[in-house]
């Protein structure tokens, strides 16, 4: 039970998260060396901190769904629908000339409405998975289209804009020098970490992901747990949607469509087992940082946006090969010693 420091170090370095840490530090170092004055400039660091939280939060939503062996393909749809609902409330009941105190109230109402949309969307996803027995991938593929479809139907497919200035608080402001989106991401990451590792619910999520049948026999209330999981994923998505809305100063049904695959990619890169039962928030955070350092650094080096996509994909496959290659190498050495 008590691990010596030595074995502790061994375990820590054997964890997939350690490999990610190395990768993140390596990329940060590489970019700092290649483009020291620009990559490390406070301007670049700040702009990075504004860029990544929106899809990083979607990756957190994906993480909790994947922990159960599921997936949530509706995250972007939920984000946009929430943003559209919030935007419609804001444009309907407030105007740009409204005093800040008054528009803040409407902003609060809009945020609440957006979170409710996320929760309801999560309830729908959770019910489809828990009560109707749909495979999560299909349930959320279908529901994602429905949510996006509602956003299109409500807006006619065009962007909603014309918000009071207070809206910029969510996506463009700083609090004691730290970008608000980054603060939101950090809070949500810590929250999800605590939920997964320090609460009964979180442990049940992991256990269910490891073996759904055994969870049933262990008298875990599976339906309730799944509902909660997808509600959390939905509400996280709503928050991401609000950040996107604030940063773009508008809401539209098809914003961030590339974020869906990106969120899956980050979660998997972060070591979350897509079949369930294993995943750590720290891994996801490190994966997000690696990707952001990489894409931002490549930007500095005048590499096109499209090359970033190429490199993300290559990074994902590389990490997967490294993870399984380690297993194969182990197997190989075992086979040799047994001969």
């Amino acid at each position: 039970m008590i691990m010596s420091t030595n074995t502790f170090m061994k375990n820590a370095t054997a964890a997939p998260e350690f490999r990610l840490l190395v990768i993140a530090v390596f990329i940060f170092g590489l970019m700092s060396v290649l483009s020291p004055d620009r990559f490390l400039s406070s301007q670049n660091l700040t702009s990075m901190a504004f860029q990544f939280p929106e899809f990083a939060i979607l990756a957190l939503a994906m993480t909790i769904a994947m922990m159960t062996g599921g997936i949530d393909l509706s995250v972007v749809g939920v984000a946009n629908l929430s943003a559209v609902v919030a935007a419609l409330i804001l444009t309907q009941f407030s105007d740009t000339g409204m005093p800040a105190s008054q528009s803040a109230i409407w902003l609060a109402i809009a945020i609440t409405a957006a979170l409710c949309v996320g929760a309801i969307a999560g309830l729908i996803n959770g019910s489809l998975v828990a009560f109707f027995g749909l495979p999560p991938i299909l349930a959320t593929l279908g529901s994602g289209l429905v949510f996006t479809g509602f956003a299109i139907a409500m807006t006619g497919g065009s962007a909603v804009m014309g918000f009071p200035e207070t809206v910029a608080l969510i996506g463009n402001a700083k609090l004691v020098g730290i970008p608000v989106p980054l603060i939101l991401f950090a809070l949500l990451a810590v929250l999800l970490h605590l939920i997964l590792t320090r609460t009964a619910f979180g442990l049940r999520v992991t256990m269910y992901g490891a073996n759904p049948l055994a969870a049933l026999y262990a008298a875990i209330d599976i339906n309730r747990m799944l509902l909660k999981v997808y509600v959390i994923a939905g509400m996280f998505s709503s928050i991401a949607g609000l950040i996107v809305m604030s940063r773009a100063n508008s809401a539209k049904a098809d914003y961030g469509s590339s974020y869906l695959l990106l969120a899956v990619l980050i979660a998997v890169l972060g070591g979350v087992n897509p079949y369930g039962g294993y995943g750590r928030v720290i891994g996801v955070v490190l994966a997000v940082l690696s990707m952001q350092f990489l894409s931002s650094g490549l930007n500095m080096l005048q590499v096109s946006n499209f090359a970033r996509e190429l490199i993300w994909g290559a990074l994902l496959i590389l990490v997967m090969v490294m993870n399984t290659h380690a297993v194969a190498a182990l197997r190989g050495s075992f086979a040799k010693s047994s001969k």
Partner: protein
Amino acid sequence: MTKLFPRDFWTRNETLVAGVIVLFCIIATLSDPRFFTITTVSDLLRASIVIGILAVGAMLVLVSGGIDVSFTAIAVFAMYSSTVLSLAIWPGIPWPMIFVISVIFGAGLGAVNGFFIAFLGLPTLIVTLGTLSIFRGFLLTFIGSQRISDLPPSMRDFSRGVIARGTTEAGNFYSIPWAVLALFFVIVLTWFILKKTMLGRSIYAIGGSVESARRIGINVKWTQFFVYVYVGALAGLAGIIHGSVGRMADPFSLVGLELSVIAAVVLGGARLIGGYGTLTGTMLGVALIVIVQNSLIVVGIPTTWQSVTIGVLILLGTGVPAYRAKRAAAQAG
């Protein structure tokens, strides 16, 4: 022995989807008699060609127990690169050669997927998610990101070729392009592989149980490899047809369609767990998606509700059988 219907006829997805299509057509014809004409049919048929070919490939992957989300990236990569290559080397190249080049490009990229999946044993969703980014990123970074509307002339010739064309008595124009034959060819070839070769039966067997397949001596790795190469080749074909018929090589097209194609296949009864999926079902699924995408307005649903309709269809099409299976399992105790 020979029964009119298979015993599970009424519970099959194919029946359900066919029923929805028939119902849709009846309502559409009632609300607008012009719906049920050769013009509509030829329009829908044209719209089905590319999705149809891609769907056949996606079904094959689902049957083998995997999932592929990279085939749209393969299609657009193969289409754009073969066009660029043709223009650079031999602008007067006949279209069958461009097609062959595109198919070879597609097969090559499929082989990349196949290598990681079959020989390194990586999970299919993750690999194809990664290669989706890689193929697309590579294409846009190194090959080009400009639309090319000045295609080799032979590609335009292909798009002009029609099997039948004419004007109905009501004065509506219709045409059925050659490309329909490509879809037909793909269906027949795939049907032959799946039903009449040991390779095809092995794909079903692997989808049913990889472990059992290995134990009775099926070469699982090469069979899986074949699946991804074949799917890549189909994607290459679909891509070049898309470019020819649309008379434009657009490196931003097609990607984003992958989930709709998978949705069509799943509506047609293929299961994500592998081992189940038919060409009939896949074509019905494609037909349903294409009808909803093109003719929703006829039954009085505004086009803005298109996504909602497709989403609801997917939820119903997969939810009803899933719920039935869940109930049956609960009954069995």
